[in-house]
């Protein structure tokens, strides 16, 4: 009896969140709670604010208003499934789950449901092979590009020779942290450096033993593949053992203000990869201030504008919005559906003109997507933290990665997936 009553209430609750018409729906599987919440809220705020800006300034995209359907996952894959099932019926155009574990879950589901998914800078790297992964995109950059760009930077610092050097990889012991290992192992074979793998169990507050090992072995470089609270702890621990910060580099998920501020001056010089510009020196931010922040429409507490991860969430929203424009032009309708959205993503071209039109020239690299290549060119830059000015700044331009190493790995991994799931070529 009790159960049926609960069920009836739950039915009523899901009915209310039913389909909406004449809107472009962007579900945001965000996480504002839990050990990853500090980072998750900034990304979610950036995503939501950009969509609000489009509504307030331009009246939506192509005259159709955008709706951000936010669902809290707490970075848990079970809640992620619940959120996906709850939002997919609402006309969802695209999913950007911001979690590698959730991406793995959703790849088969979005493929079956025909909804595209964009995992910029995370997720399963081999989805870059669009011939196998029809619905999933990870342009403009992925983890393997990131690993390669980091190694290229170290090569440049050592006049092109890393033989005999040691690189320690501190990684979140999950799918996310393990992603770069095949590439780094391949690169270690080519360039002759030693790779030390140091897994850290989620959520990552406890990493004393790993840092003890670093202290003992004195690696030349340390790479950090962490997220949430794990980053803050790692940078603090590095400061504690006086590991030279300029030799400590994080992936783009380990380089936000949240991660370095707690360590104070000791974090000065810490580096992190990024695939978009940092800061608010773009004309678009003036609009953001006028139309969203000053109007009191900012998501969350509204104080995250311009942080690294806010910009990243905004960039994700920007890519989705540009794909909508492409899809609208291709199909000649303003109210597109998920299948049209997929076409838009696959034919997306981001050029200087595109970025200038939205007031963000130079914010990210130029690239184009094709049926075979869902991964873009894989360009990334290195940023460095200045603890005195309390500010991240780019110290390189957007550099290419070693695609000769990465492309065969992508082909091998996607071929394995295709064989396991009987997927035929999608591009012919």
């Amino acid at each position: 009896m009790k159960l049926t009553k609960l069920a009836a209430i739950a039915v009523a609750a899901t009915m209310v969140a039913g389909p909406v018409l004449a809107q472009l729906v962007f579900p945001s599987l965000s996480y504002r709670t839990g050990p990853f919440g500090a980072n998750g809220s900034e990304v979610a705020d950036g995503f939501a604010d950009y969509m609000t800006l489009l509504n307030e300034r331009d009246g939506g995209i192509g005259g159709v208003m955008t709706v951000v359907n936010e669902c809290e996952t707490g970075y848990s894959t079970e809640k992620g499934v619940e959120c996906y099932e709850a939002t997919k019926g609402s006309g969802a155009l695209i999913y950007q789950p911001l979690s590698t574990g959730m991406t793995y879950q959703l790849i088969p589901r979005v493929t079956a449901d025909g909804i595209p998914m964009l995992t910029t800078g995370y997720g399963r790297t081999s989805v870059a092979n669009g011939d196998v992964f029809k619905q999933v995109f990870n342009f403009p950059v992925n983890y393997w590009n990131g690993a390669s760009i980091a190694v290229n930077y170290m090569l440049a610092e050592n006049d092109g020779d890393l033989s005999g050097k040691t690189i320690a990889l501190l990684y979140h012991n999950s799918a996310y942290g393990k992603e770069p290992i095949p590439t780094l192992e391949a690169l270690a074979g080519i360039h002759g450096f030693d790779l030390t793998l140091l897994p850290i169990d989620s959520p990552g507050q406890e990493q004393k033993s790993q840092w003890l090992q670093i202290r003992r072995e004195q690696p030349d470089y340390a790479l950090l593949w962490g997220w949430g609270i794990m980053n803050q702890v790692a940078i603090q621990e590095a400061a504690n053992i006086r590991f030279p910060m300029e030799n400590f580099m994080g992936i783009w998920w380990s380089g936000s203000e949240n991660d370095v501020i707690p360590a104070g001056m000791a974090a000065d010089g810490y580096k992190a990869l990024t695939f978009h510009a940092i800061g608010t020196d773009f004309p678009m931010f003036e609009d953001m201030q006028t139309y969203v922040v000053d109007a009191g429409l900012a998501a969350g507490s509204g104080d995250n504008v311009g942080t690294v991860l806010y910009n990243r969430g905004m960039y994700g929203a920007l890519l989705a919005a540009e794909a909508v424009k492409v899809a609208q032009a291709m199909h000649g309708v303003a109210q597109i559906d998920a299948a049209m959205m997929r076409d838009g993503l696959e034919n997306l071209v981001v050029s200087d003109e595109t970025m200038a039109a939205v007031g963000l020239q130079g914010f990210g690299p130029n690239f184009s997507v094709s049926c075979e290549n869902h991964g873009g060119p894989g360009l990334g830059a290195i940023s460095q933290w200045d603890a005195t000015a309390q500010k991240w700044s780019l110290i390189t331009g957007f550099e290419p990665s070693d695609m000769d190493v990465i492309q065969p790995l992508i082909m091998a991994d996607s071929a394995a997936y295709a064989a396991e799931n009987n997927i035929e070529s999608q591009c012919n």
Partner: protein
Amino acid sequence: MFYREAGDFKKSYAEDNQTFPLKLDRYGYYLLMAVAFGVVPFFINDYWASAILIPFLVWSIAALGLNILGGYCGQISLGSGGFMAVGAYTTYKLMTSFPDLNMFVIVLLSGVVTAMVGLIFGLPSLRIKGFYLAVATLAAQFFLVWMFNKFGWFYNYSASGQITAPAREVFGFEVTGATATASAKYLFCLVLVVGLAWLARNLTRGRIGRSWMAIRDMDIAAEIIGVNPLKTKLLAFAISSFFIGVAGALFFSVYLGAIEVGEAFGIQKSFLLLFMVIIGGLGTIFGSFIGAAFLVLMPVLLKNIMVGQLNFPIDIAAHLEFVLVGLFIMITLVLEPRGIAQLWRFAKAKLRLWPFPH
């Protein structure tokens, strides 16, 4: 008035021993089965299957398993998450090695493999009891999770250590993978739940169940009256692990479809399962179901009410959800330390006397 034995005459020992001696209970059970098998599959959608009913069914099997060990045999285990992982990874290896095998066979075999692993980790229970045993089973939890992370063979050497369930069939219907229909997945789990609950119910009221309870209530006395503690305890560990292994197999293959061992089967899952059993009611079959419903469905319900109906900001709703679920747990345990099943039993006892209580 209506809920009573009077007039319900039993003509054989079998009738006298049946699970639901009262007519009303029996009809309620038949009705529940009819609805679960005959009505729900026609109306179920993806949200109901993936977010509500399948997790409830899967956790019910796991709770039944832990209840056999903890509730009936009195052995505390914190290794359930690890045992679920054994079930999940066995399923994955069997699914990828033998693509044509029936999923029922795969899931049950995973249960058998988990039972053997459980047997090994149950050995310390012969020497240690109570909290010390809990700590020993905790070792199983950490060891198993570490093992599935460490050795690439278990996840077929995939780059990220994730395992993904391919599409597999039962009698021509896909039950795993993303293209499986909601009703097929639901019915697959439901058949296993009903079968295993029937098994658990009959095991626990027969000779084996009585020997478990004898060990639970006082192991020395049990030994004196002729209960072999070695066999009894190990059997409890094996059967409990079988149930938990089946639950882990379904958790991976039908419910989530892709998992990563540290996140899906970490220590928090062991605790969640223990809470289910304690809140539901130790040593009851019904308690396993109600405990699973309480901890799996309550958060979803609260979320839907707070976000869907009351339009709370999602982060506040998520935090309030923790507070409220915690509060409900405390209220339940303060009012009835023996779990929700005890409240149910109490209500039934009252009903029998109604309308003329003492």
